[in-house]
Protein backbone atom coordinates (compact mmCIF):
# COMPACT_ATOMS: atom_id res chain seq x y z
CA UNK A 1 0.00 0.00 0.00
CA UNK A 2 1.16 3.52 -0.78
CA UNK A 3 0.15 6.66 1.10
CA UNK A 4 0.47 10.10 -0.49
CA UNK A 5 -0.58 13.43 0.99
CA UNK A 6 -1.47 16.42 -1.15
CA UNK A 7 -2.17 20.06 -0.31
CA UNK A 8 -5.56 21.15 -1.63
CA UNK A 9 -6.94 24.68 -1.33
CA UNK A 10 -10.54 25.86 -1.19
CA UNK A 11 -12.03 23.20 1.08
CA UNK A 12 -14.22 24.64 3.82
CA UNK A 13 -16.52 21.97 5.21
CA UNK A 14 -17.52 18.34 5.16
CA UNK A 15 -19.35 18.77 1.88
CA UNK A 16 -16.12 19.97 0.22
CA UNK A 17 -14.35 16.93 1.63
CA UNK A 18 -17.03 14.68 0.18
CA UNK A 19 -16.77 16.20 -3.30
CA UNK A 20 -12.96 15.81 -3.38
CA UNK A 21 -13.13 12.28 -2.00
CA UNK A 22 -15.73 11.27 -4.58
CA UNK A 23 -13.49 12.32 -7.49
CA UNK A 24 -10.23 10.84 -6.18
CA UNK A 25 -11.91 7.53 -5.37
CA UNK A 26 -12.64 7.12 -9.08
CA UNK A 27 -8.91 6.77 -9.83
CA UNK A 28 -7.78 3.20 -10.47
CA UNK A 29 -5.90 1.74 -7.52
CA UNK A 30 -7.22 4.13 -4.88
CA UNK A 31 -8.40 2.27 -1.78
CA UNK A 32 -8.93 5.12 0.71
CA UNK A 33 -9.09 8.90 0.85
CA UNK A 34 -8.82 10.92 4.05
CA UNK A 35 -9.43 14.68 3.95
CA UNK A 36 -8.26 17.16 6.58
CA UNK A 37 -10.38 20.22 5.75
CA UNK A 38 -8.81 22.56 8.29
CA UNK A 39 -5.26 21.47 7.39
CA UNK A 40 -6.03 21.64 3.67
CA UNK A 41 -4.62 18.19 2.94
CA UNK A 42 -5.84 15.00 1.29
CA UNK A 43 -4.18 11.67 2.05
CA UNK A 44 -4.65 8.97 -0.56
CA UNK A 45 -4.01 5.29 -0.03
CA UNK A 46 -3.50 3.23 -3.17
CA UNK A 47 -2.28 -0.17 -4.26
CA UNK A 48 -0.08 1.34 -6.97
CA UNK A 49 1.83 4.53 -7.71
CA UNK A 50 -0.54 7.32 -8.73
CA UNK A 51 0.21 9.78 -11.48
CA UNK A 52 0.24 13.28 -10.01
CA UNK A 53 -1.49 14.60 -13.13
CA UNK A 54 -4.41 12.21 -12.55
CA UNK A 55 -4.76 13.31 -8.93
CA UNK A 56 -4.62 16.97 -9.98
CA UNK A 57 -7.30 16.38 -12.62
CA UNK A 58 -9.56 14.66 -10.08
CA UNK A 59 -9.16 17.48 -7.54
CA UNK A 60 -9.86 20.10 -10.21
CA UNK A 61 -12.87 18.15 -11.44
CA UNK A 62 -14.30 18.59 -7.94
CA UNK A 63 -13.65 22.33 -8.31
CA UNK A 64 -10.66 22.58 -5.99
CA UNK A 65 -6.95 23.20 -6.53
CA UNK A 66 -4.06 20.86 -5.81
CA UNK A 67 -1.38 23.28 -4.69
CA UNK A 68 1.50 20.89 -3.94
CA UNK A 69 2.39 17.35 -3.01
CA UNK A 70 2.54 17.65 0.78
CA UNK A 71 4.65 14.57 1.31
CA UNK A 72 4.89 11.12 -0.20
Amino acid at each position, binding site marked *: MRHSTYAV*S*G*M*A*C*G*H*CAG*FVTEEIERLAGVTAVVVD*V*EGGTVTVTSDRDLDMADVRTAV*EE*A*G*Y*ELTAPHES
Partner: protein
Amino acid sequence: MRPLNDTDPRQFIADFFTSFTDELLRSDEDPGLIVDRYHTPDIVQFADGNRMDRDKLIAHTRPVRKNRPSSRMEVHEAVANGDRIAARCTLHVQDRKRSLAIEVYFFGQFMADGRMRRGHTLTRTLPADLSAAPAQSVPGTPERQEASA
Protein backbone atom coordinates in the same frame (compact mmCIF):
# COMPACT_ATOMS: atom_id res chain seq x y z
CA MET B 1 -26.59 44.67 1.02
CA ARG B 2 -29.19 45.73 3.56
CA PRO B 3 -28.34 46.83 7.09
CA LEU B 4 -29.47 44.35 9.71
CA ASN B 5 -31.55 46.72 11.82
CA ASP B 6 -33.91 47.72 9.01
CA THR B 7 -34.68 44.22 7.79
CA ASP B 8 -36.72 41.23 8.89
CA PRO B 9 -34.11 38.65 10.01
CA ARG B 10 -35.47 35.95 7.66
CA GLN B 11 -35.25 38.33 4.72
CA PHE B 12 -31.81 39.53 5.82
CA ILE B 13 -30.32 36.02 5.94
CA ALA B 14 -31.92 34.99 2.63
CA ASP B 15 -30.69 38.15 0.93
CA PHE B 16 -27.19 37.93 2.44
CA PHE B 17 -26.39 34.44 1.18
CA THR B 18 -28.17 34.88 -2.13
CA SER B 19 -26.59 38.22 -2.95
CA PHE B 20 -23.08 37.07 -1.95
CA THR B 21 -23.30 33.96 -4.14
CA ASP B 22 -24.89 35.92 -6.95
CA GLU B 23 -22.04 38.46 -7.01
CA LEU B 24 -19.46 35.67 -7.12
CA LEU B 25 -21.15 33.93 -10.03
CA ARG B 26 -22.23 36.89 -12.11
CA SER B 27 -18.92 38.71 -12.32
CA ASP B 28 -15.19 38.09 -12.70
CA GLU B 29 -14.42 40.62 -10.00
CA ASP B 30 -11.55 39.86 -7.61
CA PRO B 31 -13.16 37.50 -5.07
CA GLY B 32 -11.34 39.28 -2.25
CA LEU B 33 -13.25 42.47 -2.99
CA ILE B 34 -16.57 40.61 -3.01
CA VAL B 35 -15.75 38.77 0.22
CA ASP B 36 -14.82 42.10 1.84
CA ARG B 37 -18.15 43.67 0.91
CA TYR B 38 -19.97 40.97 2.85
CA HIS B 39 -17.53 40.23 5.69
CA THR B 40 -15.33 42.15 8.09
CA PRO B 41 -11.54 41.71 7.69
CA ASP B 42 -11.43 39.69 10.91
CA ILE B 43 -14.23 37.34 9.82
CA VAL B 44 -14.13 33.90 11.37
CA GLN B 45 -16.60 31.20 10.43
CA PHE B 46 -16.84 27.67 11.73
CA ALA B 47 -18.48 25.39 9.18
CA ASP B 48 -19.22 22.03 10.80
CA GLY B 49 -16.35 22.69 13.18
CA ASN B 50 -13.87 23.73 10.48
CA ARG B 51 -12.39 27.19 11.03
CA MET B 52 -12.47 29.53 8.05
CA ASP B 53 -10.86 32.98 8.06
CA ARG B 54 -10.80 35.60 5.29
CA ASP B 55 -8.07 33.82 3.29
CA LYS B 56 -9.87 30.47 3.44
CA LEU B 57 -13.15 32.13 2.57
CA ILE B 58 -11.55 33.64 -0.53
CA ALA B 59 -10.00 30.26 -1.45
CA HIS B 60 -13.45 28.69 -1.13
CA THR B 61 -14.82 31.02 -3.82
CA ARG B 62 -12.78 29.10 -6.43
CA PRO B 63 -14.85 25.89 -6.27
CA VAL B 64 -18.03 27.96 -6.13
CA ARG B 65 -17.06 29.74 -9.33
CA LYS B 66 -15.78 26.55 -10.97
CA ASN B 67 -18.86 24.46 -10.18
CA ARG B 68 -21.26 27.38 -10.78
CA PRO B 69 -24.13 26.01 -8.72
CA SER B 70 -27.63 27.34 -8.87
CA SER B 71 -28.86 27.64 -5.32
CA ARG B 72 -31.92 28.58 -3.35
CA MET B 73 -31.83 29.47 0.32
CA GLU B 74 -35.06 28.63 2.11
CA VAL B 75 -35.18 30.29 5.52
CA HIS B 76 -37.66 28.48 7.75
CA GLU B 77 -37.23 30.68 10.82
CA ALA B 78 -34.87 33.35 12.09
CA VAL B 79 -34.60 35.46 15.19
CA ALA B 80 -32.44 38.51 15.83
CA ASN B 81 -31.13 39.89 19.09
CA GLY B 82 -29.07 43.05 18.67
CA ASP B 83 -26.30 42.25 16.18
CA ARG B 84 -26.87 38.49 16.30
CA ILE B 85 -29.07 36.23 14.23
CA ALA B 86 -29.99 32.58 14.63
CA ALA B 87 -31.62 30.88 11.66
CA ARG B 88 -32.73 27.47 10.44
CA CYS B 89 -32.57 27.16 6.69
CA THR B 90 -32.39 24.67 3.85
CA LEU B 91 -29.91 25.35 1.07
CA HIS B 92 -30.97 23.73 -2.20
CA VAL B 93 -27.97 23.36 -4.53
CA GLN B 94 -27.69 22.08 -8.05
CA ASP B 95 -24.44 22.06 -10.01
CA ARG B 96 -23.17 20.25 -13.11
CA LYS B 97 -22.87 16.97 -11.16
CA ARG B 98 -25.37 16.82 -8.34
CA SER B 99 -28.50 18.12 -6.75
CA LEU B 100 -28.72 18.23 -3.01
CA ALA B 101 -30.45 19.88 -0.09
CA ILE B 102 -28.53 20.86 3.01
CA GLU B 103 -30.26 21.82 6.23
CA VAL B 104 -28.34 24.67 7.86
CA TYR B 105 -28.39 25.79 11.49
CA PHE B 106 -26.73 29.20 11.57
CA PHE B 107 -25.65 31.56 14.34
CA GLY B 108 -24.04 34.80 13.25
CA GLN B 109 -22.92 38.25 14.30
CA PHE B 110 -23.25 41.15 11.88
CA MET B 111 -22.08 44.75 11.76
CA ALA B 112 -24.65 47.54 11.48
CA ASP B 113 -23.84 47.84 7.76
CA GLY B 114 -24.75 44.19 7.17
CA ARG B 115 -21.26 42.62 6.99
CA MET B 116 -20.78 39.30 8.77
CA ARG B 117 -18.20 39.23 11.58
CA ARG B 118 -18.75 35.77 13.07
CA GLY B 119 -20.56 32.73 11.76
CA HIS B 120 -21.17 29.29 13.20
CA THR B 121 -22.81 26.80 10.89
CA LEU B 122 -23.88 23.23 11.44
CA THR B 123 -25.25 21.31 8.48
CA ARG B 124 -26.75 18.00 7.51
CA THR B 125 -27.45 16.75 4.03
CA LEU B 126 -31.09 15.79 3.68
CA PRO B 127 -31.96 12.38 2.27
CA ALA B 128 -32.96 12.51 -1.38
CA ASP B 129 -36.61 11.77 -0.68
CA LEU B 130 -36.81 14.66 1.77
CA SER B 131 -34.80 17.14 -0.26
CA ALA B 132 -37.43 17.23 -2.98
CA ALA B 133 -40.25 17.93 -0.53
CA PRO B 134 -40.90 21.24 1.18
CA ALA B 135 -39.11 21.45 4.51
CA GLN B 136 -41.36 20.79 7.45
CA SER B 137 -42.47 23.93 9.19
CA VAL B 138 -42.51 24.39 12.92
CA PRO B 139 -45.87 25.19 14.51
CA GLY B 140 -46.07 28.80 15.55
CA THR B 141 -43.36 30.01 13.21
CA PRO B 142 -43.96 32.41 10.35
CA GLU B 143 -43.98 31.42 6.71
CA ARG B 144 -40.69 30.62 4.99
CA GLN B 145 -38.64 33.24 3.25
CA GLU B 146 -37.00 32.14 0.05
CA ALA B 147 -34.44 33.61 -2.24
CA SER B 148 -32.63 32.11 -5.18
CA ALA B 149 -29.45 32.81 -7.14
